[in-house]
């Protein structure tokens, strides 16, 4: 009976019915969009690099093939394998540069089929020689050829393709070659050459993407250092806008008579919750500081950092101090050599205690305490000390075998402003 459509997402970031639509809750849309832009950032250039490497290897393979031409019982089949490989490789490179940074599934499959044809033709040509390891050329290059799609398809898919290629090599070697001390090393090398480049490329691209994402997250969050003392944050502003829009829709539908009066209980409860959330949002946010927003908006810091700043003292820090504090927290969290270790960090600001001597310009000292878990004192990067020293005078110590830093941060007295 009601024609008012319930919004599919409420303003406190919870999606009705479905959770986690389009990204983690609590991360503002603008941030999600920026991160999405970052996901493909720079990988195009990496893809070209993979093409260069494959091409260099193909030149080597071709010269090897040419030098062995007379040894082949049927060199023309092997030559055909090379022709197919070169055509497929060049076509793939052109397609990628024309179509951009995405390879559709069907094209990926076509490329894989072409590579499979290359491997089959090459194996067929060298089968009578009974030494796959010594004579395989185009089929090894096919393994390198997989590298150029690493940036365009999921790592898992490319690894699966490399795995299938490895199995094909293994089967051919077992069925066709005699394994003895003279031939074993070349069989093993060939198997490794066919599969390892792809694995390495996947490893590199993953590391590269992680690096870019992390840097992007840091740069995005760093924009909070120029925020005013109290800020509403990206999230609050977006939600207030969405809330106003939802209220507008509801009122509009009442005004035009689409929603009949008196309202059915469901729509009435939507109106009630809209009113409540709108009230909350109108007063919310002004009490939060840049540091709160930085921590809550960052995917990396949000997971591991707890902030306690009852007096909203972080807002008093000047941009240089804020930048120092944020980068030191960032470095402490990201500077881990072991990938599966979860470091945590807690930041406590205040309370301001009166000092015995009167400070110049009536300034006050905000004590900041950084406590960590899993950060050995002797493995802290020197860059971290440099960042911390930009916040203020500090002393470091060890608490429960992890780093603790006490900083005395000198700020302008808010009473003077």
């Amino acid at each position: 009976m009601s024609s008012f459509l319930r919004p599919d997402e409420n303003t406190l970031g919870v999606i009705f019915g479905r959770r986690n639509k389009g990204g983690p809750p609590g991360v503002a849309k603008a941030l999600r969009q920026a991160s999405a832009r970052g996901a493909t950032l720079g990988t195009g250039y990496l893809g070209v690099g993979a093409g260069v490497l494959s091409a260099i290897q193909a030149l080597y393979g071709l010269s090897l093939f040419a030098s062995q031409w007379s040894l082949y019982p049927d060199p023309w089949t092997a030559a055909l394998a090379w022709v197919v490989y070169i055509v497929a490789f060049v076509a793939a490179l052109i397609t990628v540069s024309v179509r951009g940074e995405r390879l559709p599934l069907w094209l990926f499959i076509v490329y894989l089929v072409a590579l499979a044809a290359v491997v089959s033709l090459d194996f067929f040509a060298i089968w009578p020689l009974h030494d796959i390891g010594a004579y395989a050329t185009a089929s090894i290059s096919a393994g390198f050829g997989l590298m150029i799609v690493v940036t365009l398809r999921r790592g898992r898919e490319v690894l699966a393709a490399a795995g299938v290629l490895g199995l094909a090599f293994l089967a051919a070697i077992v069925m066709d070659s005699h394994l003895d001390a003279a031939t074993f090393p070349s069989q093993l090398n060939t198997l490794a050459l066919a599969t390892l480049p792809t694995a390495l490329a996947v490893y590199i691209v993953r590391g590269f993407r992680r690096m870019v994402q992390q840097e992007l997250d840091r740069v995005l969050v760093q924009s909070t250092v120029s925020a005013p003392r109290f800020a509403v944050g990206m999230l609050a502003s977006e939600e207030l806008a969405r809330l106003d829009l939802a209220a507008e829709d509801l009122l509009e539908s009442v005004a035009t008579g689409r929603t009949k009066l008196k309202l059915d209980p469901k729509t009435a409860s939507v109106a009630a919750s809209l009113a409540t959330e709108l009230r909350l949002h109108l007063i919310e946010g002004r009490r939060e500081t840049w540091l709160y927003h930085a921590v809550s908006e960052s995917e990396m810091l949000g997971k591991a950092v707890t902030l306690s700043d009852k007096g909203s003292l972080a807002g008093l820090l000047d941009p240089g101090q804020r930048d120092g504090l944020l980068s030191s927290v960032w470095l402490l969290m990201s500077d881990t050599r072991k990938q599966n270790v979860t470091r945590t960090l807690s930041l406590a600001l205040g309370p301001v205690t009166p000092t015995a001597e009167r400070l110049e310009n009536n300034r006050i000292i905000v004590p900041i305490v950084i406590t960590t878990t899993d950060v050995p004192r002797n493995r802290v990067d020197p860059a971290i000390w440099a960042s911390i020293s930009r916040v203020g005078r500090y002393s470091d110590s060890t608490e429960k075998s992890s780093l603790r830093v006490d900083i005395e941060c000198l700020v302008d007295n808010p009473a003077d402003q």
Partner: protein
Amino acid sequence: MQFNRIRNFVPRGTGVAPPFVVAICDDFSNMELIAKERDRLLQRTARFLGLSGTIITLISLCFPGVVPLNNLVATIPLLLILTLCHFMVARSRPTLWAALGIAAGIAALAVVRLPFDQPPSASLGTAIAPLGAAGIACFALVLVSSVPRVLLIIIGAAVTTGLVQFATVHTGILSPTALAIILGWVLSSVLGYWLSASVPRAARRIYSIGKAHRAERQASETEAQRRQGARLLHDTVLATLTLLAHSGVGVAPEALRQQASEDARLLRQLRLGATPTPEASGPYNLTPVEETPLGTTLESVKQRFGRMGLEVSWHGTGQVLLPSDVLDAFLLSLAECLENVRRHSGVTQAHVTITDDATTVRAMVTDSGVGFNLEGIDDDKFGFRESVIGRLREVGGNARLFSSPGSGTTVVLEVPK
């Protein structure tokens, strides 16, 4: 807690760098941070590649007949040193560990070939090729960054190629196996160069996204403030939503529709960028002039609650002039208190007594309802702290709450004149 060291980089009173210095430091430290990440990626890649090559060679050498047992036993410690270098290169002093790794690898290539006056076994060259082409050549990844280090690459490549050639049964100048070593060094160097080059490219784009994001954050902050600042608008919207939350009972449908249409129009204006200041909302007067007589607006509050079933009786001063922001806070807090009476007291009548002296306007909201135990109930309940105390404090006022079970509730609101 034990203090290890006291650092005193920044003397008190001079801890703040001028803004332009901060800006330069920002860019510098940004670049420094991502350069560190790039080095780590290169080092990890080198480790992956180096370990793979070393392991493949080790497997081949372990195949019976490829190499005499004595040579194998003598080579293994050198391979272990090489492996150690693969790990250490990702930890500290990469150039040093890379040089040591190359030396250990070269020594392994030489030892495995002993004695030099005997011809090598048929497959020795092939077996040690992965060691030369990946196990040792992987250090090229971390060495391409400067000219003296490139010299180290050239020396390493020449010596390993020579040793592998020496271990190969081949009559020509350069066997395909030795050529493969050169290929390994070339691919490794190109990969290192390409990865290094792609990081600044990505970094530049990351920072431009970061700059755009900073602007976006400022815009969003302004936008949120504009929306939060549109208080009068939100008051009328909230009033209408509250009526709708009660299904619109007790209000003439035509009047409610009229008001909903008016509010939707205002919200649309807000969304499209204007800051509408409604003069009236239905029967309520919301004149936003610099100073507003309290009496007329109080009357509108009374009417609003009258509609929702709470009879409000006014006592005391009718005409008080207040600045509009103070009036906003005062009225909203008053409405909030009356809303609490309506919801929780269990009675349908409330008394509001307004008094004023030279500096302060005071409102006492009294009901004879169920009351509650102040000890048992937190201020936060009913949003009292945020919606009443918070608002009043913002304009320099205050609120106090008196109640006990069974004897009603009294709230005293104070704002400065």
